[in-house]
């Protein structure tokens, strides 16, 4: 096969094209993961797993019964300690996925500009909300532009900042219907740092691989000037 490709220019070109097609399909074809709401509906329709049978269960039975009673009779506790963390994990996962899509995109920014007064008006007519972001970048975190993306089941305003050679994505979405943490959440997922917060009707998700302190500094600038 190799010998033939070495001596046949036409077949070599087809082989090159096939490899190029595989590469672009793997790296550039948009992926459409299931929305959080759909996953929750699917999980709800599937019977839950029964716990494994172990001898310690008999010893722990009274405590388990008590815990079950508390959980069953206190939906708020169940929501807070069982459902909400899982939903917030999904929120963080989506933010990281979207950030990776930005990094992989050939044209991550639809509105390339370092001027917030050019980027924000660009969103008019493209979103059903006005992204309240006033921080237009500075020497530490220059603004590179904006784009419209999708976050779970809704449109998102994407602002791209940078720190040295690192890209930082800020996703701004309508907050309604999503499980925002009560206070600002700082976490990490798959090597990326994520800061999540809600301000009024909007939710904010900041994602990057910069140091935690640097991302916190940018979050403070965005929060301070977004009020």
């Amino acid at each position, binding site marked *: 096969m190799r010998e033939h490709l070495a001596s046949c220019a036409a077949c070599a070109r087809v082989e090159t094209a096939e490899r190029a097609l595989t590469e672009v399909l793997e790296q550039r074809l948009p992926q*459409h993961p299931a929305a959080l709401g759909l996953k929750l509906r699917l999980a709800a329709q599937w019977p839950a797993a029964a716990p494994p049978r172990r001898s310690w269960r008999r010893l722990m039975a009274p405590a388990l019964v008590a815990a079950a009673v508390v959980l069953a009779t206190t939906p708020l506790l169940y929501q807070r300690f069982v459902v909400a963390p899982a939903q917030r994990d999904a929120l963080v996962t989506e933010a990281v996925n979207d950030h990776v899509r930005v990094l992989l995109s050939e044209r991550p920014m639809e509105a390339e500009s370092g001027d917030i007064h050019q980027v924000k008006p660009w969103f008019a007519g493209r979103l059903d909300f006005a992204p309240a972001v006033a921080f237009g970048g500075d020497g530490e975190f220059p603004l590179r532009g904006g784009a419209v993306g999708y976050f779970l089941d809704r449109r998102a305003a994407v602002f791209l900042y940078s720190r040295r050679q690192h890209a930082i994505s800020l996703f701004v979405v309508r907050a309604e219907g999503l499980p925002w943490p009560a206070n600002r959440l700082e976490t990490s997922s798959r090597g990326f740092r994520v800061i999540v917060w809600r301000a009024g009707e909007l939710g904010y998700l900041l994602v990057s691989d910069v140091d935690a302190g640097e991302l916190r500094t940018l979050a403070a600038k965005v929060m301070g000037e977004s009020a």
Partner: protein
Amino acid sequence: MEDSARDVGAFGREALAYADTLHNLAHYLTGNEPDAQDLVQETYARALRSLHQFTPGTNLKAWLCRILRNTFLSEYRRRRGSPVVGGLDTVAPVHDVADRELDALRKVVAEELEAALMTLAEDARTVILLDLEGLTEVEVAEVMGCAVGTVKSRLSRARAALRRRLGDDAH
């Protein structure tokens, strides 16, 4: 009884891990988000009803993909009375590639790639996506209900059609 419930629950957890894969396939089959969500939900409902038909040790992802595609073909196309999205005929694999086709491949952006894929016939789109998911030719053949040899030729023709479409767009 308890073992049975545990089996169903464990099976469910494994099955739900493929929700993103199934939704992605559903999106490229239906062409829109509401129908994709309906299709995925119906797929899981059917899978739950057909658990006894799954052969342990075989590929669960392929089994779910087969249910999803069959559901799409039987339910959506018939119920909505509308043609399947896309439909450009596939072409025989070409034995030469023009410069503009290679250039187009190197420069194509995500939106163009998605749009080009959506112009292909349903079976061409499906075979490309299943191949991307890492399913073997045998598994793809089971999903699509055809012979392994047919999968090879369909995949080759589908990829040739996609390359040509991208090359045409670059014109």
